């Protein structure tokens, strides 16, 4: 029986037979269905996924007419990270005119709201000028990154120190205090950048620090949306599952700990999010057919019930993209095609 | 702090040595690496260059001298050293150790 070249979740190549791919697709989908209490992929969808992985071409793409809108997290910092000596505005122009970008995102190299706060006055004139010379919608993006509000970086006791000592009440109190600081910073930065003309604010990698961070972000979004009803808010998640680091936090009477993407989406819609970005993490020691099937299953549950556009997060190590610094094009383009066509994404 | 015209340009025009237009960077290296005060640093650099102290800020002398020594000129002359190559030669000329030069050489 012939074998097909694909990859593991860490990006290394692996050869699988058709039945092995089938088995992995089935198991990946079932895993998501069981954890998220959602429907697994149906037979047609599994078969379509199989075909994508059997295709011998290095790169694959969506069918004509099924193209979607691409949004970018941490847009301008990508150029800085690879040490290309261009300014933020120049990198936005490169995105627009050389990479065919549908949307743009301006960002600070330390991609979190807290470090943006003291330099927001430097970001505003850059945004204002970028808006004069670019055409696609321009977001300002940053991460809520609640971790920065606990010691030794921030003012609140570190729950990571308190929890192992059984100091549950103190850890929860710390999280509650952190939420207040984070909301203040997110609303401040969001306000300043929207007032400078941004089309939208992207809250990226939301809930990386668990339920407290998710709550802070939802509340900040609600405040911004009330203040500016026409503001576009994009919220990208950090993981498929909201960690219950606090455990007893609620938004609109829904407990945040343990929520899966389709449930996260419901609360995002209630808070006023315009574009939602679900995330499915990669399991590095499972194959890509397993990982992509799992990601597609979670994401499909979102898009089926969504009233707002869904842009799945598909960066390194999420959404079926291997966890490696240089994602292979064969793997990434298969994840892209599968997520768009089977999950029926609005963007990614 | 202050805007470009009103702060660095004004100071450079009023009292600056002129960087690589003349010998400002060379005098700066002596302050940085040997903690020399201004008069001593200028004397040292002038001696190394074999010129009078007053010519350290003389464009007429320094442009051609810098070009001849390969220690960088302010204009983008093709074929002439600039950047780390110029600094390698400056370290040799002034008999000083420059951290970036040492690091660069360690990578070769």
């Amino acid at each position, binding site marked *: 029986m012939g074998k097909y070249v694909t990859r593991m979740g860490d990006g290394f190549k692996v050869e699988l037979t058709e039945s092995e791919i089938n088995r992995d697709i089935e198991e990946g989908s079932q895993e998501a269905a069981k954890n998220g209490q959602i429907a697994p992929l149906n037979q047609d969808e599994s078969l379509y996924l199989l075909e994508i992985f059997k295709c011998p071409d290095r790169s694959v793409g969506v069918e004509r007419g099924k193209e979607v809108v691409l949004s970018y997290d941490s847009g301008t910092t990508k150029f*800085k990270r690879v*040490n290309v*000596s261009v*300014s933020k*505005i*120049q990198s936005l122009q490169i995105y627009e005119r050389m990479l065919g970008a549908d949307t743009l995102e301006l960002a600070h*190299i*330390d991609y979190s709201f807290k*470090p943006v706060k*003291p330099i927001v006055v*430097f970001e505003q004139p*850059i945004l204002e*000028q970028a808006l004069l010379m670019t055409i696609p919608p321009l977001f300002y993006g940053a991460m809520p990154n609640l971790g920065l509000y606990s010691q030794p970086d*921030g*003012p609140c006791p570190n729950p990571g120190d308190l929890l192992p000592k059984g100091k549950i009440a103190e850890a929860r109190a710390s999280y509650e205090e952190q939420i207040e600081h984070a909301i203040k910073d997110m609303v401040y930065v969001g306000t300043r950048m929207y007032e400078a003309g941004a089309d939208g604010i992207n809250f990226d990698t939301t809930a990386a620090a668990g339920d407290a961070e998710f709550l802070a972000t939802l509340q900040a979004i609600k405040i911004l949306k009330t203040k500016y009803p026409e503001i576009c808010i994009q919220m990208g998640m950090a993981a498929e599952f909201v960690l219950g680091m606090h455990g007893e936090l609620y938004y609109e009477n829904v407990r945040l700990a343990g929520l899966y993407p389709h449930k996260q989406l419901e609360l995002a819609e209630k808070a006023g999010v315009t574009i939602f970005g679900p995330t499915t993490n990669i399991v590095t020691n499972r194959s890509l057919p397993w990982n992509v099937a799992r990601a597609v299953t979670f994401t499909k549950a979102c898009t089926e019930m969504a009233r707002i556009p869904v842009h799945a997060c598909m960066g390194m190590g999420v959404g079926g993209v291997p966890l490696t610094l240089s994602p292979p094009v064969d793997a990434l383009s298969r994840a892209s095609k599968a997520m768009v066509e089977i999950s029926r994404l609005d963007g990614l | *702090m*202050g*805007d470009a015209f*009103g*702060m*660095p*340009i*004004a*100071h*450079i*025009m*009023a*009292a*600056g*040595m*002129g*960087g*690589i237009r*003349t010998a*400002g*960077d060379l005098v*700066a*290296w002596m*302050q*940085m*690496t040997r*903690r020399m*005060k*201004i008069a001593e*640093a200028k004397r040292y650099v002038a001696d190394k260059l074999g010129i009078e102290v007053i010519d*350290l*800020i003389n464009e007429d002398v320094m442009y051609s001298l810098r070009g001849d020594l390969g*220690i960088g000129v*302010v204009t983008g002359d093709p074929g002439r050293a*600039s*950047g*780390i190559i110029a*600094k390698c030669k*400056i370290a040799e000329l002034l008999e000083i150790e*420059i*951290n*970036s030069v*040492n*690091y*660069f050489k360690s990578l070769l």
Partner: protein
Amino acid sequence: MQDAIFTRMGDGERISMPVQEMKEELLEGTQDAAKKGRIPELTEEDLQQLFEILAEPGRIVSVPSGKEVVVTDDGCAKIFYSGPADGGAALPISRQNSVLAYERGFAADTVSFGHEDYSFKPAKALIDYEMQTYYTTSLATTVPCFYGSQPNLGLYFRPDGPHPNPADLLPHGRIDEAKAAQEEAAEQLREDMVYVGQKLAEVGCEGINFDTTGSAGDADFHATLMAVAELKEKVPLMSVEVGMSGEFVLGMHGGITFEGKRLAGMYPHEQADAAAAAGADIFGPAVNVNTSRSVAWNLARAVTFVKHVVESSKIPVHPNVGMGVCGVPMCVETPIDCVTRVSKALVLIGKADGL
């Protein structure tokens, strides 16, 4: 000779000042500095020379040929790409482009750049990026390239940092707790400065500029001196410049000493001795501007402090001459008539080694 001289107030406002009044302002300025710093006043010749510099009719003035000095900066890159708070023009060019423009377009003697938020704490979070940028920039520059950053102890207090805020504790009389908080914060600051400095030295950093040192008082200054001493021991080839935030070290703690000397209340000449003892190669005194007094008064004051520190210092002295220090008016668009007069006076009368 003209009856009145066009000059400015410390906030930049243009005024016309009668000759006699200007002479009185100069005298009062030097007397104020001498009294506060317990240092000699400017001589009559100095005051006359200072008056003549201020009274020159030209829009700008300069030192005579041969008297030029080395000009260092506090993050020159930001005046190109950054925003108004740093005098920035928000040009759409990168940090590296800015530094090269400064070297070749402005004919600067040295260049420097730092993190967007120009403090060690945020720079630490991005150290790989800063190292990479420094390395590629230093390959392209010919003049000495500094990495600049502020110690900025304030970032280590709540709500930004982990330690209790002394400004909250002191009004409640909680002196011991405020002192303890500052000691802990200073220790964390020292660690961050040494970490950032060492990492930059690894990629061949030519010089590091501790800018606006002592802005949070004696603990801020102490942390910097300790970091300088450690860096000089670990990476002696990296030059160190220590620039101050004010003429007087605030005793926010009050009891901190360095090499047996109390830091609180130190004036520039004492600060320079401490910086040199720690291992600094260049010292940058700062003399604050009183916006309600004239430039004449402020400049006489600044020159008095600078002259004395230059005389007593064993290391080169580069007075800080940014907005609102050493006689430069406190306004974003600093008037070039004043800035060039400050330059000339500090170099010719103050005998500065650089600016």
